[in-house]
């Protein structure tokens, strides 16, 4: 059985569909990239999965359980973590405290505070931020903030990790590190990753399967090479995006 299954999921804002009947499944430690032009509905689709938005139609199934419209904190404790497009960290806490929150509240059986701090240190070492753990969040740059959120997400030991454009605006070296880290997270914890990305170079380097969204619908699906040669995909991107690669 797939870990995550979407059945004809749809969400409209004021009558305009943002996600318009999407069905897809993933699991088994796959790295699935979700691409598409601006406004295609990628972020909305992730929000429907974690419960930040409630779908107008369709079903979201996690590991056989119908979680459609369930509130985010419950979905989180069922093993789904998300890193948003804009960083969502807690400004007056230290890096370590931020990450510890992921362990304290994200898990089904919560650890005590000391254990949570240990888990946080491990997660921070994993993303290479261990030397910044006593800094406040304000001292981090965008790239480090995203890594912080990645660490906070894995501190909650998710089975499914949803990432929304975590590589936007990174330079080449940072991009390489990010790709390695996401792959390492999958390899070590066998986490399934659904990952929204505009940076095609990263998609080609990391994704095992690509789903292309356009106007809230699935336009194409397949291996990165296959999809990028698809004439419909090229058409959808033409004049909207450079394919980057």
């Amino acid at each position, binding site marked *: 059985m797939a870990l995550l299954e979407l059945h004809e999921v749809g969400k409209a804002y004021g009558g305009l569909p943002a996600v318009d009947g999407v069905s897809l499944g993933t699991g088994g430690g796959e790295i699935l990239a979700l691409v598409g032009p601006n406004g295609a509905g990628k972020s909305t689709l992730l929000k429907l999965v974690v419960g930040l938005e409630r779908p107008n139609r369709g079903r979201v199934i996690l590991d056989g359980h119908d979680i459609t419209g369930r509130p*985010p*904190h419950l979905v989180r404790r069922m093993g789904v973590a*998300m890193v*948003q497009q804009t960083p969502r960290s807690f400004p007056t806490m230290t890096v370590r405290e931020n990450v510890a929150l*992921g362990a304290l509240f*994200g*898990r089904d059986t*919560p650890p005590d505070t000391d254990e949570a701090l240990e888990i946080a240190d491990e997660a921070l070492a994993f993303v290479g931020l261990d030397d910044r753990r006593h800094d406040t969040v304000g001292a981090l740059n965008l790239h480090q903030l995203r890594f912080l959120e990645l660490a906070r997400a894995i501190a*909650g030991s998710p089975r499914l990790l949803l990432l929304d454009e975590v590589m936007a605006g990174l330079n080449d070296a940072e991009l390489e590190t990010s790709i390695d880290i996401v792959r390492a997270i999958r390899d070590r914890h066998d986490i399934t990753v659904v990952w929204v990305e505009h940076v095609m170079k990263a998609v080609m380097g990391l994704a095992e399967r690509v789903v292309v969204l356009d106007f809230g619908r699935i336009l194409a699906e397949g291996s990165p090479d296959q999809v990028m040669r698809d004439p419909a995909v090229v058409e959808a991107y033409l004049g909207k995006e450079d394919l980057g690669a």
Partner: protein
Amino acid sequence: MTASILDGIVLGLQFGVLAAGLTLVYGLGGVLNLAYGQIAVVSGLVTLLTMEAGVPAVPAALIGLVAGGALGLIFDLTILQPVYRRHGEARVLLSLLLTLGAAFVIDGYLNWRYPLRGLNLRITGDPLVVFGVRMRMGSVVASGITIVVIGVLYWLFRYTRLGRAIRSVIQDEEGSRLVGIDPQLMMRLILVLSGVLAAIVAITRSMVAPVNVRAGFSLTVLGLIVTVVGGLGSIPGAFLAGLVLGIINSVASSYIGTFLSLIILLVAAAITIVIRPTGLLGVRE
């Protein structure tokens, strides 16, 4: 001078607790509770009636605290439900209107049913000499309780799991949901806590001077002034502002006159807001 500063500190600590209950609810959920003073008064009245039924003062006061918490919970479950469904400014405005309505209803009922009643917890004992000033036993006990309450609040927010959860909701509600925290539940708990704090203010205040059933609105206004000066949503700010305003109030009362003290507090508040629009320790949005 030392005497009125010491009085001011006693008062200021209570101002701080009063404002903390308001500022927490606002910081967490964008809700301004204008019936806050009425919650305090009702808790005081419950304490009074329980004592009149023959229960000793300490258990009666505990029942008063429970009443305050229960009122907070009732607010959360009833009139605040439509408020939670609004966001941003609409939420603040609706909360102002609905809690103001509740305040009028409670005030009206109290004035009809219990006119001229007031809680007065006289604490006997020889005055204590602090920094060469004789302090009444009531003030000493009230301050002691208030300081313990402040310590417990500090411990709660700084070190407990619950405190971390609440701080994270105050800082970023959506972020807190994504780490697995339920903001709705936190809001409910905070309303209970806020009710208990209101009750503590009524009970400790009544050890220094009677708290009568008409005091609701003036307590709310006082709480709001302290909250605004401290910075909406900031707990340390509430306590700092409480101390500053408590001292100003008490010094002004003894040198100028009690009748002007609220005006002087308002002026102090206005000056603070002109100099620092976010209040003493408020965070810029």
